[in-house]
């Protein structure tokens, strides 16, 4: 561990590499114009791969920039999830970007800048860093949601995302100001330290914690602050949805854990009831709303809301014993991979049928492409939490953690709503295997090789982690 007052810039190498790649993409576009189309992807790929390498084999760890950033196990696991999603989208998203004519330089640079914000949030050691991380990722995502601005849905999604996102930032910031006013510091460690000697039954601290919680819950789309999510996920380009429903959520959850579990842990009595209530509401609303959707994208959006509820159980567990943080981080990886893959594959399949992302588009998939049907089945079973997939192991740890922390009722609710969720995931599988393609649908053209490859690798990883969870758990448990 290095001295807290030193710069320790080397530990920030992954963030810097990703930001540098984003700047280089812009530069390549300015210099090369249209001939640089391939270069954007290669620069991004190089940046992401090198950042991933230095995340897993860090040159330096510990506090950096006078304690405003901390590179510990939490940051390492969070960064790995974010970079894995970026890699997945880079390898599997090329055909989608081409077919929808999304401007490549804008897409690649914005996704790298958003990732920089996410990585700063994940390794934040100070409220200022938390705020800047959230804003960098949000502002980049507002622009990315507007990439398909020729379509009405895309424009509305961008506006809706922007208005709700900036509204939520206001609450987050007000909460931070109150916490700063009460504790006299913005450093997370110092806040935790000062709360041990101060009276935590103070309205300023409780109000600040609750306002910050509202801000965070907006960002991770937890009920009752989730109304924006289905519309925004539905209207944005599928590849952007795949990014914001996975990497952004993973980053926001890690940030939430960083602010609330260690720093505001002393004031846990103030925010735990609200968090527990929101978790229950989210699991119920998310799963039951997903039941009635006809659109695959909206179904996944509501399933994402429901999963935010399961992850909140992990945060609740971590607030009583921080070892349970590992189960949140464990589940983030399979969750992010599955959703990243499903949004992309769903868009590619739908393009061959109705083009409207309907559940009906999956009918007859097994006859057209058995391999793809198998891979999607694995992903959906993992999302439903059926063994032997990583989804089952992840949910098992989350619910066990909730039981350990004394939230038995919430854990039961989680299991019951998971059973409900099996219905709408199985519906897609049944459509794919036991229904015939609608008469008059165009002949099947094989999907892009890169997309099939990342789908296959993700499905394989889900099965491997389902059987040997320690491969990833040993990394997340070092925190």
């Amino acid at each position, binding site marked *: 561990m290095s001295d807290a007052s030193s710069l320790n810039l080397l530990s920030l190498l992954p963030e810097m590499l990703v930001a540098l790649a984003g700047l280089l993409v812009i530069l390549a576009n300015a210099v090369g114009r249209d001939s640089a189309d391939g270069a954007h992807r290669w620069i991004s790929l190089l940046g992401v791969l090198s950042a991933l390498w230095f995340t897993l084999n860090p040159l330096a760890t510990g506090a950096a920039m006078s304690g405003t950033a901390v590179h510990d196990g939490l940051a390492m696991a969070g960064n790995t999830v974010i970079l894995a999603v970026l890699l997945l989208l880079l390898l599997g998203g090329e055909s989608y970007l081409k077919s929808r004519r999304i401007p490549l330089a804008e897409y690649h640079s914005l996704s790298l800048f958003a990732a920089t914000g996410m990585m700063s949030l994940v390794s934040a050691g100070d409220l*200022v860093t938390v*705020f800047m991380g959230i*804003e960098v990722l949000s502002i980049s995502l*507002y622009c990315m949601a507007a990439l398909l601005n020729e379509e009405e849905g895309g424009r509305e999604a961008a*506006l*809706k995302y922007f*208005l709700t996102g900036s509204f939520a930032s206001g609450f987050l910031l*007000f909460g931070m100001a109150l916490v700063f006013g009460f504790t006299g510091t913005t450093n997370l460690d110092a806040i935790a330290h000062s709360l041990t000697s101060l009276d935590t039954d103070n309205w300023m601290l409780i109000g600040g914690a609750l306002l910050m919680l509202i801000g965070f819950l907006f960002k991770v789309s937890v009920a009752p602050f989730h109304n924006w999510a289905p519309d925004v996920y539905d209207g944005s380009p599928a590849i952007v949805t795949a990014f914001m429903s996975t990497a952004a959520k993973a980053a926001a959850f890690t940030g939430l854990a960083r602010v609330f579990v260690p720093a505001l842990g002393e004031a846990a009595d103030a925010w735990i009831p609200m968090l527990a209530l929101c978790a229950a509401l989210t699991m119920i609303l998310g799963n039951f709303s997903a039941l009635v959707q006809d659109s695959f994208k909206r179904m996944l959006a509501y399933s994402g809301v429901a999963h935010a509820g399961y992850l909140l159980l992990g945060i609740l567990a971590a607030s009583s014993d921080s070892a349970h943080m590992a189960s949140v981080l464990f589940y983030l990886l399979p969750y992010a991979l599955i959703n990243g893959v499903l949004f992309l594959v769903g868009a590619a399949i739908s393009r061959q049928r109705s083009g409207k992302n309907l559940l009906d588009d999956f009918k007859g998939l097994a006859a057209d492409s058995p391999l793809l049907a198998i891979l999607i089945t694995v992903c959906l079973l993992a999302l439903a939490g059926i063994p032997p997939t990583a989804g089952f192991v992840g949910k098992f740890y989350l619910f066990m953690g909730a039981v350990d922390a004394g939230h038995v009722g919430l854990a039961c609710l989680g299991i019951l709503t998971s059973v409900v969720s099996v219905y709408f995931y199985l519906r897609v599988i049944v459509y794919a295997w036991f229904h015939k393609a609608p008469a008059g649908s165009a002949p099947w053209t094989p999907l892009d090789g890169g997309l099939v490859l990342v789908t296959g690798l993700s499905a394989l990883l889900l099965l491997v982690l389902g059987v040997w969870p320690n491969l990833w758990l040993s990394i997340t448990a070092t925190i």
Partner: protein
Amino acid sequence: MVLGPNHFLLLALVLFGIGVTGVLVRRNALVILMSVELMLNAVNLLLVAFSHYNGNLAGQAFTFFTMTVAAAEVAVGLAIIVMLYRHRLDTSIEHIRLFRH
């Protein structure tokens, strides 16, 4: 009367409340954007006040970050509103069902 932190807190709360009300009540995207800015500026006031009374410059440093972020947010927000206006010649959010299920 001597000004204390509570006076600033009250003023910031009132400003923040006006901002929140504006976002929830007004139907024009531009006015909503202005209301969000009001919320952020209420926080800036609070940060500077706390910074003064705590004898700690961290809050004032925070304000610079907030202002930068607010400027970036306005730039992106106005671009999105202009994009909508071009297609609809209207900045109202009436036609956008913000809370549809």
